[in-house]
């Protein structure tokens, strides 16, 4: 080994050594916070999920048995899978479509439209729900008032037919649409224009450019949006809680809402609630892993 190479290595090693403390210093607060607010509670939750609420003694899978033999909780899983399917498909398609429109139109107009469609993202789910309640309320909401003025019967949006699902999904969609559109738009702007120019010279039509250039380049963006959407929708709680309360007939009950109600029930053994929360966590992690597996994220070429 030459003297020069050894010298370089020594220099590199000493630099690593010098950098190490500052690196640790920067990482430590994050590790402490994660420990306090994520890992320690997770370990505590695991202990609690396997112990009896009254005695604190180990009780095996009793708490899981309780929650899995709770029909409302099981139904809530079916609901949230349906909601996730609808929201993911609708958001992915419409956000991508809208982002493509933004990409195609004049930059100045696009900037204004971007801000307009991003504004709902700044509103919390609770506030959005209140806005929708004002619109949909059966007793005196905006639509009811208009219908009564038109001598029509008011619509019980929160209880009739499939309206409750619509009432829950519409605000959810509205809140996420701007963010997802912006992410998609940023992804589209990242596609090198030179590819399109070359494709134009070769005589490729719009669809060919879409299939062979845009979509492959957008793959990582799709993964990001997909994972965010799946995780967010599976954890959905505030909007159904505010608008429908999980009803009617538990049609809009989600696992998180069920667990929230269970936590608020001071008579219920809370270790059961914790066991349920762990099950939801397992579901979310599994679905995300599957999503990552199916759409393998690739490091973009330099």
């Amino acid at each position: 080994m030459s003297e020069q190479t050894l010298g370089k290595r020594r220099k590199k090693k000493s630099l690593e050594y010098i950098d190490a403390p500052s690196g640790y210093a920067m990482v430590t607060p994050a590790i402490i916070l994660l420990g306090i607010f994520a890992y320690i509670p997770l370990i505590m939750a695991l202990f609690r999920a396997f112990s009896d609420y009254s005695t604190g003694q180990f009780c095996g899978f009793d708490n899981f048995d309780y929650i899995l033999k709770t029909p409302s909780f099981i139904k809530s899983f079916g609901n949230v899978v349906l909601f996730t399917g609808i929201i993911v498909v609708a958001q992915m398609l419409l956000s991508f479509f809208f982002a493509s429109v933004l990409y195609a139109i004049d930059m100045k107009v696009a900037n204004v439209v971007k801000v307009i469609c991003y504004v709902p993202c700044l509103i919390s789910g609770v506030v959005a729900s209140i806005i929708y309640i004002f619109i949909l309320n059966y007793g005196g909401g905006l639509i009811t008032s208009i219908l009564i003025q038109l001598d029509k019967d008011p619509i019980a949006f929160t209880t009739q037919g499939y309206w409750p699902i619509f009432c829950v999904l519409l605000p959810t969609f509205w809140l996420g649409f701007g963010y997802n559109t912006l992410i998609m738009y940023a992804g589209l702007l990242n596609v090198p224009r030179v590819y399109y120019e070359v494709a134009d010279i070769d005589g490729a039509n719009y669809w060919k450019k879409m299939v062979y250039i845009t979509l492959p380049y957008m793959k990582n963006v799709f993964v990001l949006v997909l994972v965010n959407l799946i995780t967010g929708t599976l954890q959905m709680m505030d909007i159904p809680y505010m608008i429908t309360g999980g009803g009617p007939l538990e049609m809009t009950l989600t696992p998180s809402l069920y667990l929230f109600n269970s936590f608020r029930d001071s008579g219920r053994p809370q270790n059961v609630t914790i066991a349920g929360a762990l099950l939801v966590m397992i579901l979310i992690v599994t679905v995300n892993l599957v999503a990552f597996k199916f759409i393998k994220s690739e490091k973009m070429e330099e």
Partner: protein
Amino acid sequence: MKMLKKISIIITLVLAIFIVASCEKNGNEDDNKNYVEEGATRITVYAREFEQWARKHLEGLVNEFNKDLTDGIQVQVKFYTQDTYADALTVARENGKAPDLYMATYGELYSNIRNNNAAAVDSYLSAEAKADIFDTALDLVTYDDKVYAYPWNLEPGSLFFYRKDVFSSLGITKVPKTWDELLAVCAKIKPTLTRGQYCLGLPLGGIECAWATYGMQQNTTGGLALDETWKNHRLDEPGYKQLAKFFYDVYVNDYAPTAALTAEGYTYIVDALCDEKLAMTFAGSWCIAEIYDYTNNNEEIIKNIGVAPIPTIDGDHSKITSSNGGWCYCISEQSKNKDKAARFLNWMLAENTERTASYFVAAYNSKAPTTKSVKTYLDSKDSKVPNEWINVVNDVASKGIPEAIYPFDISLEVGKILERMQLQCKTEPFDILYGKALNDAKNNIETIMQRTTYPSNPKYKENK
């Protein structure tokens, strides 16, 4: 750059102040700073806020109790709204800071006992005080021969409120006693209504139908969803089908709204009656106070409202027509000062009849007392509330059954049957719809019964 630094320091300070302030004032507490007893033991009470008059009344009592600076007890009450009360209680217990005293419904009491959150109070309750409690009320707080709470009030969950002016304008002279009569009155009222007005208000949705129909279930079927062993359901009793048919008939004829008319749903459904959106409604006895509060003591509206026991299948009002909701005070099993907590409870609820009765006066007699002495006292006093209303509350409460104490999921299954009658009545004929709803409910109840931790009926063991 310096300016940026200054701004960030100011923001950090403001945030820190907000965080500290919010931590300190958690729970909307009343510090009762006027009466500070040095070295006294602090007894914390977690209370539901209820109405403003209820809050003021409890604050007044606590202040009066704290005036005595020699008893070594300082009571601090923390009020929580309906939405935050259970959360606060759970969080406090999870953090090892359970309050010394808390309010619980009779329905919740047993779960609190099972979860080691309620201490037996026998040793704190004098024989005289115990004898003064009505048997109906004492039974609600007694498990395995031990008394676990101080019964505070009884609230029948189902009474019948109606608009006298609507009845008189249509020549209806008799308050409906049976379901058939009720449906006939609805048929008479319906053509006179404008859009947004309805004949009848009922508990709506699975959860409300679960807890607000215990009395109706008892009246129609002779029991609740489970038999006394808690090992078998009773959903095949013909009464359940009749109850479901009643709900079906009401909703298929559009006599009742299919969405809540008030923000609080069934709890304050009587607001819609005051607003003339409903001509009649089932509602809990607490709605008597709500009528006074909501109308701001408007005598013109109040005189047009009548109160009666709910119409039943056979119209026999000597039978049970309602469950008894209501609240009791529990001492936390975790409390280190149970004796001192009990001393405050005895002072508030057992030592002075006038003091205890003052709550019922403040509550517009919308609740029935739990002790004989208070009942006698209230009977001897004039009230601004019509005697007819007070008599109905007391009469219904005296016969009322306790709310179910088996897992609420089971009650919910009955609620879901009724909810399907309400919301799907126009999709299928009754027999088919009921058959499907019943089947689902039975399957779900059987699933719940298969839990390894499924409880047995503590009252059944007691009876054996």
